[in-house]
């Protein structure tokens, strides 16, 4: 059992939960994830570990509420418990010891970038973070990333920071030269667009993938992705891969497998809520732009 200590809303549909998980807090490394299981009948949800405090025995999970299960999670209040958290899963990020790195985060993917940027900064690598959102309220973790180095914040509508997509800011940064490596995490179209920029320049680019997953230990094969023409399992071979070799079309397509089911589950949940507890917890936003990031991470 894992107690929820805090739940903080970061954007209209993104929340940061700090939960008890002493063992995972002790040994987790940047890039790794956990599988969260709320309780009997619940789905198993893969979530990147955004942060951890080995002394307090806690980890933070940044969750975008896009489907029934993630809405259930972000409604947890301090004192509530999560039945199971399994991990840390996946391979840790392979990080350089020196040089200059750009970290690109889109939407909730920014939370995956944070532990990477933090570890890079600790190693003395010069980090530039480029993060974005639709508008100001959708930008998350800017202050946390600012502690790791320079941050370029972009909004699609120009309401904050640099107007336009993160890829436009990345293009300028790459053109200025001197970039040794790029880490990019966000919606599939964003990662694909990042790779379209870095590949011609031969800049190593690591992406973190969030395909459909059940167990997280390699046993279901649901998370298979094609990398360099070979089928790999994101849960055990990844979740990070060389972005220049990932078949993003296939990944984006496989993420749509359960779309009708997800819509129906959400509708059932909303109907249930309207019937049972009208007006409670007004802080939860409507399911904004369904599937903005493709999945929970």
């Amino acid at each position: 059992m894992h107690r929820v200590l805090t739940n903080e809303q970061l954007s209209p549909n993104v929340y940061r939960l700090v939960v008890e998980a002493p063992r995972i807090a002790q040994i987790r490394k940047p890039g790794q994830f956990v599988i969260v299981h709320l309780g009997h009948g619940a789905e198993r949800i893969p979530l990147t570990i955004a942060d951890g405090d080995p002394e307090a025995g806690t980890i933070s999970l940044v969750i975008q509420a896009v489907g029934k299960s993630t809405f259930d999670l972000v409604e947890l209040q301090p004192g509530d418990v999560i039945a199971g958290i399994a991990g840390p899963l996946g391979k840790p990020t392979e990080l350089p010891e020196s040089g200059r790195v750009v970290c690109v985060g889109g939407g909730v993917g920014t939370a995956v970038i944070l532990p990477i940027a933090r570890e890079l900064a600790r190693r003395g690598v010069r980090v530039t973070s480029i993060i974005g959102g639709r508008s100001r309220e959708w930008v998350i973790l800017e202050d946390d990333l600012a502690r790791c180095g320079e941050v370029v914040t972009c909004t699609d509508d120009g309401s904050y920071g640099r107007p336009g997509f993160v890829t436009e800011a990345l293009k300028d940064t790459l053109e200025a030269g001197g970039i040794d490596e790029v880490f990019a995490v966000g919606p599939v179209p964003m990662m694909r667009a990042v790779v379209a920029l870095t590949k011609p320049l031969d800049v190593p680019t690591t992406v973190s993938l969030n395909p459909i997953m059940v167990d997280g230990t390699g046993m279901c094969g649901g998370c298979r992705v094609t990398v360099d023409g070979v089928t790999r399992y994101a849960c055990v071979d990844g979740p990070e891969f060389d972005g220049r070799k990932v078949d993003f079309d296939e990944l984006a397509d496989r993420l749509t497998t359960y779309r009708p089911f997800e819509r129906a589950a959400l509708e059932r949940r909303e109907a249930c809520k309207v019937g049972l507890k009208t007006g409670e917890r007004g802080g939860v936003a409507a399911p904004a732009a369904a599937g903005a990031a493709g999945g929970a991470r």
Partner: protein
Amino acid sequence: MTLEQEPPAPEPRPALTQKERMQLKRVDMPEQEPQIRAANFAEVNLGLTEQLALIEAERCLQCPKPYCIDGCPVRVNIPQFIRLLRDGDVKAAAASLLDDNALPCVTGRVCPQESQCEKVCLRAKTGKSVAIGHLERYVADWAMAHADELARSPAAQAGKSVAIVGSGPAGLTAAGELVKRGYDVTVFEAFHAAGGVLIYGIPEFRLPKDIVQAEVDRLVAQGVKIEADAIIGKTYTLPELRERFDAVFIAVGAGLPVFMNVPGENLKGVYSANEYLTRVNLMGAWDPEADTPLLHGQRVVVVGGGNVAMDAVRTARRLGAASATIVYRRSHDELPARAEEVHHAEQEGVIFEFLVAPTEVLGDENRWVTGIRCIRMALGEPDDSGRRRPEPIEGSEFEMPCDMLVVAIGTRSNPLLTQTAPDLEINKWGYIVTDEHGMTSMPGVFAGGDIVRGAATVILAMGDGKKSAESINAYLTGNWPPAVVEPEPAHAAKPAAHERPPRPAAAGVAG
């Protein structure tokens, strides 16, 4: 069903002569009607009535040299529990059975008895064997319903601890054997619930989940601790466990799915059997309101011929598939599945396409599966496994439409644990190497089940669990190496699991 034919059970019953016993016909297991059960998840086999069980028990000849015990991987004293049952002492029969077998409710349902105990039953030489599996289930279910009467007082504490990695049939069996001997046993399970393949793999209609839970609860009541959500190789490493515990038993199974390696396998609508069955069984996705989603195919094809393939195809049928087809590259005679599963699948309207192998998965413009391209096969000369090798017939390609495809051609070893244990010797397939006592290259670390032998059956894994528990006991009591491996040398020795090379992964289930 034979309910009408059975004579009333005489009371008191005079002892039958051997000749009279020989005249008794084997009773049939009452089952749900095929048309009804093909649309529900309730158990197919209903279990013997008391009357049927007593009649069947009379059929056992109580051989002085019982071959059935040799045929059983966990060496259940079969004549003894049958005799106790026959004599009207079902409680003693249950106690006897539980002494030998930690999970009798499971084995009474899923063991391939026809190729084990019942195969060597003396009565099989001249007719039908004693229905040992049905009797085991009857006694085991009685034991479960009367758990209070059979409660054991906790064993004297041995003062030593054992970690068991994996809560499948091998792990649970070892846990039961070791806790009985007073060891402090902790079972580590990667999933959120214990049972391994018994809960994620084998469907409800063959092995109800509350039965598995009851078996697990019985072990917990005896003192076994279960730590869920703990992945050895990730949450803890094997060397860490070895530090914390006096001995370790690795029973993680062969967890990775094998795919066919043909074009189109990543199309939407293509599942590994592991994923499909896990969604349905462990995650409860047979219920349309469950949180875990599931595709419901109308025309489902399952590739493979093992028990897992039968489970998948019969599940698809129950979830509304208008057609559910097994595609198998050999013929009916080579099907590795239990005979009863094949028979049940046939009764439930499953279509069998024999001597057919897929060469490509076909999809539409939205990348949903629409069918498979196949080639017909002919059986050639026997291969290493002794079965005739299927060979493609040139020019025989054809297409078979489907909207869901389940690949059930076997599993292979999962490297998660072994990657973090550099001192643990593995073979070229990634399976753990053990000596004749089940010990690995790391002193005090034992292994058994599919991670040693390659994909096999529940009962073989349980046999390994039992044997390893005996080895661990010998190791922890300073009787190492144990002098005698086989407990009763009078019986013909059977090849130990560890002496046989594990079958190559892909051949595991589908062959």
